[in-house]
């Protein structure tokens, strides 16, 4: 092939490549295309639930503990209400459990610590790609649900948090999981991290641990658990703060 032809084809290929890439970026910004891409999510969710419905996340020996457990996302909610709670060592803290329950609850930290608990050394996998290993101890969510008595039509637990995600102090973090995850043996509301009370940087006084999903599901600074049939009416309607920002609700991948 002549040099001229070669140069022409190299340039044509380069231009075509650039056009395709620009096309991909344009598609990403449409309303419809991400919906097409996300047809994979319910497929992944149902396969995960079918092949490993109640499988246990790996637990590690003490020797595997990370030297320190990284704080990511909010490291201090900083609102007046939260600062007041923290200054009082969370003595006035109440975890509200309401929504589709027969028996709404308002639990103090002492109440939560008195519930059946579980301690586990697990690996935290962030959606960004990093992992860290820590020891968590907390109340089993199944015990809290048993006390609250979910109504027959309840399908999800929504976790409302104390940390605002917008600069102006609005848009509180929230997350949701289904009942299969809520009743899973390793699903706990953790109050201890590495055998010390959960630090503010990691979600004091309570954070969710749902061990077969990514870090953004592990909601920190829990204030209220709301049982719902659907989360379509809550915030952006996608079941969580990051879900409202385009992340998958099923965070098992």
């Amino acid at each position, binding site marked *: 092939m002549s040099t001229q032809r070669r140069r022409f084809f190299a340039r044509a290929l380069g231009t075509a490549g650039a056009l395709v*890439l620009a096309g991909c970026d344009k598609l990403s910004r449409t309303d419809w295309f991400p919906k*097409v891409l996300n047809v994979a999510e319910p497929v992944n969710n149902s396969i995960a639930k079918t092949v490993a419905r109640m499988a*246990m996340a790996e637990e590690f020996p003490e020797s595997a503990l990370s*030297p320190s457990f990284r704080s990511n996302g909010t490291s201090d909610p900083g609102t007046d209400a939260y600062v007041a709670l923290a200054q009082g060592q969370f003595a006035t803290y109440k975890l509200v459990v309401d929504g589709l329950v027969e028996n709404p609850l308002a639990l103090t930290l002492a109440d939560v610590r008195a519930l059946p608990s579980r301690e586990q050394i697990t690996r935290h*996998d962030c959606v960004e790609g990093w992992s860290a290993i820590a020891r968590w101890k907390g109340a089993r969510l199944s015990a809290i649900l048993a006390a609250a008595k979910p109504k027959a039509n309840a399908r999800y637990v929504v976790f409302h948090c104390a940390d605002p995600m917008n600069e102006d102090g609005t848009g509180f973090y929230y997350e949701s999981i289904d009942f299969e995850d809520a009743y899973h043996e390793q699903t706990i509301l953790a109050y201890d991290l590495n055998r010390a009370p959960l630090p503010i940087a990691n979600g004091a006084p309570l954070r969710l641990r749902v061990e*077969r999903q990514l870090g953004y599901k592990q909601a920190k600074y829990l204030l209220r658990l709301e049982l719902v049939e659907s989360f379509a009416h809550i915030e952006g309607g996608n079941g969580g703060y990051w879900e409202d920002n385009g992340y998958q609700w099923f965070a098992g991948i």
Partner: protein
Amino acid sequence: MPMDPTLPQPVVPASPAVPDAPLQREDARPVPGGYTYRRHALPVRVFHWINVVALTILLMSGLNIFNAHPAMYWGSSSYSGRPPLLMMTAVEAPDGTARGVTRIFGHQFDTTGVFGLSTVYGELTARGFPSWLTIPDGNWLAMARSWHFFFAWILVLNGLAYVGYAAWSRHIARDLAPTRADWRGIGASIVDHLKFRHPKGEAATRYNVLQKLAYLVVIFVLLPLMILMGLGLSPWANAVWPGWVDLFGGRQAARTIHFVCAWLIVLFVCIHVFEVIITGVWNNVRSMITGRYRVDRDVPAEVQS
């Protein structure tokens, strides 16, 4: 009527350098100076081009995902007290300018403009891989994951369909499995490749032994390992058989293996495209589009393998 042997005999055309045997192929079609035949079956061509699209998007969306935490580790955790194997980062140089730095196995390189620090929409931005290598172009983890997990399914379904078809049609046994003669000729084939000397004529209608091995390694080792290590990153897939990912060194090791496999596939594609170009780009590309590959008849015998 019997021919009179005393009359002059009709002129018999001189026999071609390559015997007529190839024209006995059912699918051979004579063209001036040679013939064409159907090299690639339609399903293989379709699988091939779907694979090109899927692997390209998977690589580029994968690099965007990497950019969310541009470092690679071995073991289960990223925070083990040991430094990362690979890290791309932006640092401030003594003169106050920002530099992109790549650290690999403890060696540090200034990679400003490409790795660690590059221009996105006209602005110098701290990021692992540059925007022209990622989908989407800017840092957008959620969207990159959507692309990645959709095309992961395309890759897997396309790959399964290919392997199923290739086994059923005997494409693997007929075209990809090295023969005894192939194994014996492996040394010669290596020398031929290093000298950019390639089979021509009839010999070019068969894959050479290195080509067969390269395809087999990519199809049955690299791609499955890369897919498995991708699953190793899923905390849910980890739970299916707790601890399985530790057989590969742990989740962060799986992430590193996933990354290395991706680049080995890129290396394969580079060599593949190089060989396509030097062995006749049009003939090769046409054979992967229309299926038909041209074989020249008048080929000196010594360049045939």
